[in-house]
């Protein structure tokens, strides 16, 4: 039997007004112009473009059955957040109908509605109230919330004394335990420390397993594939594709990679998020001699050179470079927080270099993921999920050192064999004789 629907979008169109906001003068003068028979276009020309609009969603039809973990991917401005806002009733469609079944909880921002002057305890009740819970209902869940967020010690302290990670944890816990049927998550798992992110994803996974519906926007395909059975791929306000997670994720990655090859500069800008105080301007892979390369023999030194640009001075940013295997996740993460000689304040442009000396990577395709975060690694300034892609080939044996590596084409590199596992580790198998008397 098909499970009942949790969400249904019926030819939904959402138009936003952009440009400068209207004032009373605009309103009065447009009425006045109307009386004098002037046309609207003249009004727009005279007073600036007030009525410029963008179509955030165009005629979107979508049906999400209960119990679905739905990952939503797409470039910035594709309409992902608008979709969540429509489902949560924060905003309403210009045309069409959004039908929702059950109690919706939106995590568009963790801890929205918390007040820093109030204690953690008071904010739990305030936040749960915003999600529609009564005091008694909140009291019943209070211990679970505190336990999940791990804030028992600070629960009676004003929240302005909390770290931002703690703030996010408590916000997440309140939402998760407020008995939702549908949970909307928008990139919020980009913050917080790794243990929290893991627990958060596990908690969302339990909700899905329990028949709840989770809509999950993320640039992180790895988290999406861990959590979601289906993926919705949005593009320019329309549904590009909707289907099984593994299939859509693969198509999406392929396209991003094609974009990178075809138009490195534009693609570089498209699939990224972050607050933008400082951003990567270019990323380059080279071998130990500084020659650009996309094919790296295993255990040969690999160098990632990245230039950054900060429009304003940024204090102690942390540069992170991770090698990611598209199928199984992060292989290794490096961060400059452990480097002693980083400047305290960076401004303008600069270059960082990360040297992976003799990485024992198995022959596979990898993607670089690059981040710049604040000192505490909570706010991402720049997130580049799909950085340059590269392939690791078989280690050079004395016999094939002479073979020139064909530069560039990583798809047809002959030496790639997709073995299981990511790294070479020296190992030895021993067959211990069974202690059975025959």
């Amino acid at each position, binding site marked *: 039997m098909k499970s009942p629907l949790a969400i249904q979008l019926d030819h939904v169109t959402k138009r936003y*007004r952009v440009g400068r906001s209207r*004032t009373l003068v605009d309103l009065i003068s447009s009425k006045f112009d109307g009386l004098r028979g002037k046309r609207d276009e003249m009004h727009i020309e005279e007073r600036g473009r007030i009525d410029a609009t963008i179509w955030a969603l165009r005629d979107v039809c979508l049906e999400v059955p209960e119990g679905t973990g739905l990952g939503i991917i797409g470039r910035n401005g594709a309409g992902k957040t608008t979709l969540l806002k429509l489902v949560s009733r*924060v*905003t*309403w469609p210009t045309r069409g109908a959004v039908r929702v079944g059950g109690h919706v909880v939106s995590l568009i921002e963790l801890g929205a509605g918390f007040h820093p002057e109030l204690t953690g305890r008071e904010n739990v*009740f305030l936040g749960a109230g*915003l999600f*529609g819970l009564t005091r008694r*209902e909140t009291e019943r869940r209070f211990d679970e919330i505190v336990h999940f967020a791990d804030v028992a010690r600070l629960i009676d302290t004003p929240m302005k004394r909390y770290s931002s990670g703690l703030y996010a944890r408590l916000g997440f816990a309140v939402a998760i335990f407020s008995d939702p049927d549908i949970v909307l998550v928008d990139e919020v798992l980009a913050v917080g420390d790794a243990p929290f992110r893991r627990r958060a994803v596990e908690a969302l996974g339990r909700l899905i397993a329990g028949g709840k519906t989770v809509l999950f926007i993320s640039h992180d395909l790895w988290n999406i594939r861990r959590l979601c059975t289906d993926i919705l791929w949005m593009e320019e306000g329309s549904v590009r594709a909707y289907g099984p997670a593994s299939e859509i994720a693969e198509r999406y990655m392929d396209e991003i990679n094609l974009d990178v090859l075809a138009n490195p500069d534009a693609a570089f800008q498209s699939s990224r998020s972050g607050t933008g105080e400082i951003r990567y301007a270019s990323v380059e892979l080279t071998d130990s001699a500084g020659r650009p390369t996309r094919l790296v023999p295993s255990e040969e030194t690999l160098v990632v050179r990245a230039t950054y640009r900060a429009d304003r001075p940024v204090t102690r940013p942390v540069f992170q470079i991770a090698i990611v295997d598209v199928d199984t996740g992060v292989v290794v993460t490096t961060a400059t927080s452990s480097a002693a000689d980083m400047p305290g304040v960076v401004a303008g442009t600069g270059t960082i270099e990360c040297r992976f000396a003799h990485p024992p990577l198995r022959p596979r395709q990898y993607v670089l993921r690059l981040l710049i975060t604040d000192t505490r690694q909570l706010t991402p300034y720049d997130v580049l999920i799909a950085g340059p892609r590269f392939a690791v080939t078989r280690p050079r044996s004395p016999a094939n050192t002479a073979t020139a590596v064909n530069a560039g084409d990583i798809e047809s590199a002959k030496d790639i064999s997709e073995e299981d596992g990511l790294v070479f580790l020296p190992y030895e198998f021993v067959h211990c004789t069974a202690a059975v008397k025959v």
Partner: protein
Amino acid sequence: MLTDRAERISPAAYFELLMNLTKREVRGRYSQSLFGIGWAIAQPLAAMIVFTIVFSRLGRIPSGGAPYPIFAYVALVPWFFFSSSVNSGTVSLVTYRDIVTKTYFPREIVPLAQVCSRLIDFFVAAALFVLLMTYYRVGLGPWGLLAPAFFVLLILFTVGVTLFTSALNVFYRDVNPVVQIALQLWLYLTPVAYPLSAVPERFRPLFVLNPLSSIVEGFRSSIVFDRAPDWSLAATSGGLVVAVFVAAFVTFKRMDKYFADVI
């Protein structure tokens, strides 16, 4: 069961959310201030002193036989409840844009919480009024029982105006400065510093259209003078207040779907 209507929250959850936002507002306003909630008294008290000097001593404004400070204060407390509510209520949705654009909940709770938080100021200031009554030996008579009726009118009118200005201010930020100026003028067009009886006959209709006239005069006649209110005036403003409240609430609920888009 799918629905294209907004989710309903239970009346209990609604009320508690209102109380929590009120608490958040009051705590935010008075935390880390030495005088704390005492500031709720400062405003009407200071105005009472100034009014006593300017209008009573210098201007020789009549106060109908009651001590002028009491005469003014009984009107200043409801006035400041109204004006502070409208003042902070007008900008409240914009101030709370973080939650308005990120979660769904019945939007009117935000301006309502502003009114509720000013209600606490109202009661604190009213407590001082009891002391003043004792000091000037003014007793409460049977007509004092009518005061709660004017209190209800005051709340309905304040909520109505606040809902209206707060919704409008989301779309047109000019509303706030206009409201600021209007409130300043409104104080002098309401019989707060002077009795309605001192207003020349030909200006009376203007005062009848202002529900606050009958509300402050009503508080005055029932509490200070212990006599019947002007029934026809009270009935007119009662009707006006209900009309304003209903119109404002309907307007607000029509507009609130678009708040998050333009805020």
